């Protein structure tokens, strides 16, 4: 087995502020092999963005208590100096967001921003950097790319801005792309274009992607593997076909069953009752137990350890669906 590109072990993140601390992540473990696409699926507040920001060390360091390990290409991200972080961000590890304006500077042209990033990380002449910027815009399918080099972000449509942000993120050939709901704000006809684009670029450039989404359909289009998050924990992980086709965790099964695609028009949808817990007062056991039809007494007592319901799969559940209840914990997290 090849060395992982990214390995996260027992990551805890708690935000300390005025009141009770917010336990945003609890014992998150993930692994990504080079060239793999991992989707993190979860509902609002489940900790998806915090996970990505932790990988980039973008959390507010004074308020966020971080525990556990993050290793990227064999290096300890949590031990990196500011200088090492600056060299890594945008060069080896790049990020794209739901709202391109958070990544693009409104006062510089698209071409200038990409060229600046290229020169900062890769050096070379201004002309070479600009040629690289043009090449990137063409690769991401911006029409009339030469003209668009001199456009300001606000002069582009939403879909083109998203492509420009992708071009910026990929301009230095990162090994790892972190994508935080990059298609959520886009129209349906544009979303599918951007998904196909990312899939093609991923294959061409061979980079790994961690792609955050709350949309199961988006995961089905792009993921090799899927990790399902609930209340700051990964509750299930496995190949996209298995997790979506044969979910082991009752929360994943509940999410799938509550999609409108799966019921007759107007019929009652099998909605999950209740709401996620308050991250300031997590229950001692499984956070999903209060909403779970399959919960047993043990679920309220302790957090279920990760078990392996099948090859290459992990679930944190005492009663994984369709698998014999199993107490044996996974010693090390194997993807």
């Amino acid at each position, binding site marked *: 087995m090849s060395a992982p590109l990214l390995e996260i072990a027992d990551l805890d993140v708690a935000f300390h502020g005025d009141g009770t601390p917010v336990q945003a992540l609890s014992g998150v473990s993930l692994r990504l092999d080079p060239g793999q696409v991992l989707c993190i699926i979860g*509902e609002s507040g489940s900790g998806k963005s915090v996970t990505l920001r932790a990988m980039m060390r973008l959390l507010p360091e004074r308020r966020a208590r971080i525990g556990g390990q993050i290793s990227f290409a064999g290096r300890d991200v949590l031990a990196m100096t500011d200088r090492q972080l600056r060299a890594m961000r945008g060069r080896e590890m790049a990020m794209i967001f739901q709202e391109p304006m958070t990544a693009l500077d409104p006062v510089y042209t698209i071409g200038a921003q990409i060229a600046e990033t290229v020169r900062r990380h890769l050096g070379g002449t201004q002309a070479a950097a600009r040629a690289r910027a043009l090449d990137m815009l063409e690769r991401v399918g911006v029409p009339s790319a030469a003209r668009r080099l001199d456009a300001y972000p606000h002069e582009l449509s939403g879909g083109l801005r998203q492509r420009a942000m992708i071009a910026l993120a990929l301009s230095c050939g990162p090994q790892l792309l972190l994508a935080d709901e990059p298609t959520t704000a886009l*129209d349906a006809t544009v*979303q599918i274009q951007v998904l196909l684009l990312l899939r093609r670029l991923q294959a061409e450039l061979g980079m790994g992607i961690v792609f955050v989404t709350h949309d199961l359909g988006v995961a089905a289009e792009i993921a090799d593997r899927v990790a399902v998050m609930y209340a700051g924990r990964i509750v299930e992980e496995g190949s*996209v*076909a298995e997790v979506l086709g044969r979910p082991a965790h009752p929360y994943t099964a509940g999410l799938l069953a509550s999609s409108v*695609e799966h019921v007759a*028009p107007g019929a009652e949808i*099998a909605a999950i009752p209740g709401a996620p817990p308050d991250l300031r007062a997590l229950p001692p056991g499984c956070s999903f137990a209060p909403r779970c039809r399959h919960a047993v007494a043990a679920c309220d007592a302790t957090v279920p350890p990760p078990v392996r319901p099948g090859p290459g799969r992990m679930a944190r559940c005492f009663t994984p669906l369709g698998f014999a209840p199993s107490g044996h914990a996974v010693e090390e997290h194997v993807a």
Partner: protein
Amino acid sequence: MNSLPEPVADRGGPAQPLLIARDLRKYFPLGGGARVHAVDGVSFSIAKGETLGIVGESGCGKSTLARLLMQLMPRDAGELILDGDPVGGPHGISVAAMRRQVQMVFQDSASSLNPRLPVQDSVAFGPRVHGRSRSAALEVARAALRQVHLDPALIGPRYPHELSGGQKQRVNIARALAIGPRMVVLDEAVSALDKSVQAQVLNLLVQLRRDLDLTYMFISHDLAVVRHISHRVLVMYLGQVMEVGPVAQVFAAPRHPYTRALLASRPSMDPARRTETLAISGDPPNPVDLPPGCRFAPRCPHAEAVCTAANPALAGGADHLAACLIQVPGSGHSQAPGLEAAA
């Protein structure tokens, strides 16, 4: 137990549509004489008890259409007829009389509630405006909260920031119900909610429709949600209606290339059968510089020279219509049936 106000009595009878919109138009002026053609000649009707879904991409005019229906902004042209009565104008019913019958729920559940009021007071506001005493209005508010499955004793005294997104959207629905409306316009009412909460609210909307005989206009960019809740669906593009028809027919046999493209753009849900080819490319153009002729022509895989000559009208048969020359016999489009087919 249900002490919601009685809705205004039916006037026109079952055959009279609850709402008819004729040739609604709204242009927003920009500087330099340019105009945004937000809603540009939209006509439809909604039968009593029916749910009409409105779909289309961002900026196609869905919210403007809803605001025109609710009289939240003046229309440039067009007519609205509520159960046989024209709305506004010298011979029509007043805007207040219309709002007694038609209520709206907005997408942004957070900012549509007053942050400084307990939510029961926000819900009671409508009944107060419509003349109830303070205590009677609060009683109605509690009934409305029960109707959306919120415990009035527990949730009523809370402030918006103390509620989850799903609870806030239930409060917004309760606020609409507190007037005793016949129709509710729902503008992206479940779009901001998480999928599991969205399912709960959709179930609630279907149940309320049945229990209270409500008519809905349901606006969403989410085709799956619209298909689930609507009886008929209207597809908009750049301020105009591209297709309208019974939801099952439009989804099973779409007639407009734009509707087909929208349907084909949905993610596959099955990793073994991923989308391999794009139905259309490019972004929706901006509603200021409109292309000549059919507005979809620049992105349409079937566009021909005739398509840029004139803007096609809705055509087809019976209740399933599309604004596409391919539908019109003898239109000159190579895929249109010949004139003899129409004879």
